């Protein structure tokens, strides 16, 4: 099952990282990650491997689209 929660990179040693997922710390391999991970980055982890580094700009843009849709909806409610 996919772990839907993004993990924060808190330590890096060669190709392994320690990530924080919620309150838990986990060892995660970085060998499948195309981008270089740095401390404080958020990554998507699947079964012990980081598979994607979250791009904060992409995240902000998609959240903006989402909020736009939701606020447009609530404006209609009250309008």
């Amino acid at each position: 099952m996919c772990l839907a929660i993004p993990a924060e990179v808190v330590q890096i040693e060669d190709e392994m990282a320690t990530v924080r997922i919620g309150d838990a710390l986990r060892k995660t391999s970085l060998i499948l990650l195309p981008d270089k991970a740095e401390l404080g980055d958020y990554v998507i982890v699947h079964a012990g491997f980081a598979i994607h580094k979250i791009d904060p700009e992409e995240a902000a843009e998609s959240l903006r689209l989402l909020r736009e849709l939701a606020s447009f909806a609530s404006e209609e409610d009250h309008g």
Partner: protein
Amino acid sequence: MEYLDEYRDPEAAKSLIETLHRRSPFDRQIRLMEICGTHTVAIFRSGMRQLLPDWIRLISGPGCPVCVTASEDIDRSIWLSRQPEVIITTFGDLVRVPGSSSSLHRERSRGADVRVVYATLDALRIAEENPSKQVVFLGIGFETTAPTVAAAIRQAAAQGVDNFSVFSAHKLLPPAMRALLDSKDLNLDGFICPGHVSTIIGAAAYEEVVSRYHIPCVVTGFEPLDILHSIHLLVDMVLKREAKVINQYRRAVKWEGNLAAQRLIDEIFEPADATWRGLGMIPGSGLKIREKWSTFDAVKRFAMPVIEVKEHPGCKCGEVLRGVMTPPECGLFRKVCTPGDPKGPCMVSSEGTCGAYYRYQG
């Protein structure tokens, strides 16, 4: 938590649902299928099924890897666990799936060495720690799991771990989507495409399905607002009679996917025909280990016999996986098939449709 709480805002969810209600009534149902077990669970857990307008029908498809694994592959895994000096390593879900006459769980109580691991590299470590044993990893999973298995095989080769092998029963989702659409009895209007499978294969991987079948696809995140956003995007396209791929889950999915992981899959595996529970044989929908890496292929290392498969006669897992039947329509559901005593894999797995119905919507 970062990248999480903002996608769970109940006020925003409420307004997204209300907007959908204002669009009704339609002259027909809009049928959307999710093909990822994590989406199935997220949809049930959020309670949104009861809140959506009744002209939107969410259908759970073959998105649970354990559930779609063919009975013969379950039986072959059980056969492997009975071989002398073998340690079976697997993700947890598979252990309790009933085969024709046993399960890995039952074999373990009879003395088989079956170990649940969190990651494929843990399986490799067990092989290193037990040089006199044969350690087999059961490769059950979609495109998200395949690169992690490929990484373990490559590392085993690099470190000379020759008592490690993989039973590859991996499945690829786009061929299964084509098979579902070819079956004609589903009348789907759109796909809620999986999140982390798409992290690997990219949103671009659905373009072929979209152009061939003219069906909208939205790559979707796992939080309630992600899923509601995706439903909006799909409904928009259905109404405009448009079909394209939209990537709603841009924070975790690139258009082209994870190219490093794709290259690794391609290095170790090649596409192969595969049998899915409920869908039958689908050409090119599986992955087999390439000849170059065949020393790590459990199928080559062990002379597996042909096993005659017996499934529970009343189990409708196959129909549930194809989305043509809901769990409560199965005669076994809740009566004799429960998470405590499952008759089929869809009830065993935490992400199986029957398990989700049992827990969240009795």
